[in-house]
């Protein structure tokens, strides 16, 4: 493979994977013919048009679904991301607790929650059988409630986890998000490990990754508003437990107003953009 062909394939990454599978070879052939001999990169105008064309093709992906279906997919990604994050956090707690000399029962409970929530997440992502998702979510909800009873001072987490499990059951129907969302879900799921495995700098890396994820998804709104809505759902679920616990302690909601306003603004702009990016249909999905 020549350097020019390698660079052409690199530029084609701007297009969605399905589009590349269908048209990638054809566009590469045209680019190779259109590029003057001896060059290792296509002309600048071809580079610009490919990148813009790729972004347009990505934006066009939403247009086959109506707003409600796109919104449901975005919310499902956010909820599944949060549950995957919780499952990994419980797994980390289980590993730490089970290797410590005391606290074995709490460790086994955390391990059970990690397994049950993880199973619910996997089923909500791929399965179209509502019964199977409910069968995994119910024991997960019971285990989460038990863990909540174990730590009565911090009941915000179990409340949001129960709400997220219920949301995953309700949202897991019709069109699914597709594998291209997995890297985002994987990234947020890995956050508890980043924090746990890097004592000292972990929280800084954790916070930086969250900010990068948030800013990246907000910038991506121009092309596809769904990641911003998913990020807002995830961050809201991430922030709400602390907010609930603060209110329960009588600390009030004042400190939580700025994040709530920012997340609401991101979600509102995302929904507005999504409506413009979606199909003008009402019959399909919903």
């Amino acid at each position, binding site marked *: 493979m020549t350097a020019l062909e390698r660079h052409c394939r690199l530029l084609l990454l701007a297009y969605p994977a399905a589009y590349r599978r269908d048209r990638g070879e054809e566009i590469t*052939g045209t680019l190779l013919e259109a590029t003057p001999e001896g060059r290792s990169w296509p002309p600048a105008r071809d580079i610009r048009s490919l990148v813009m*064309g790729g972004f347009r093709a990505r934006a066009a992906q939403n247009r086959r679904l109506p707003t409600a279906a796109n919104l449901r997919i975005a919310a499902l990604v956010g909820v599944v991301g949060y549950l995957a994050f919780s499952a990994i956090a419980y797994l980390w707690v289980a590993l730490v607790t089970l290797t410590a000399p005391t606290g074995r029962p709490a460790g086994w409970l955390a391990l059970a929650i990690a397994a049950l929530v993880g199973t619910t997440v996997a089923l909500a992502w791929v399965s179209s059988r509502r019964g199977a998702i409910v069968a995994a979510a119910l024991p997960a909800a019971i285990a989460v409630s038990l863990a909540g009873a174990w730590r009565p001072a911090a009941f915000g987490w179990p409340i949001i986890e129960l709400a997220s499990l219920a949301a995953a059951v309700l949202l897991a129907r019709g069109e699914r998000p597709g594998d291209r969302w997995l890297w985002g879900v994987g990234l947020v799921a890995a956050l508890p490990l980043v924090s746990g495995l890097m004592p000292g700098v972990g929280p800084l890396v954790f916070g930086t990754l969250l900010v990068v994820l948030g800013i990246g998804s907000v910038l991506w709104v121009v092309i596809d508003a769904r990641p911003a809505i998913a990020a807002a759902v995830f961050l809201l679920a991430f922030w709400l437990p602390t907010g609930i616990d603060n209110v329960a302690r009588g600390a009030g909601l004042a400190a939580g107003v700025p994040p709530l306003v920012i997340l609401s603004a991101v979600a509102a702009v995302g929904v507005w953009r999504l409506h413009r990016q979606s199909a003008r249909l009402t019959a399909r999905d919903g």
Partner: protein
Amino acid sequence: MREPTYFVLAALLSGPLHGYAIIKRAEEMSNGRVRLATGTLYTALDRLTAEGCVRLVSEELVAGRVRRSYGLTDEGSAAVRAEAQRMAEAARLVTDGAARARGRLGRKARTA
């Protein structure tokens, strides 16, 4: 109709062509003024195919790669001809106006 779209359709008036041949044909037709960028060409082809103005005519393997040829549909042919007519009428507003102005100036010069 945007210029790249017009030239893609106009290039296909003479018969089905593959991607690079459309770029070359548009360049020839415009005396080198219009050089379609590859991304622009395929964005236009996608849209025109979805609108029913262009259709896939044939697929062949060239040097191990798929090469697709595209042709005009009746709708595409009608759309490019209607656009050409519209532009010709718009051009006449200027060229005829200029001719009339030249005629008036000539008459004034003769009577002076």
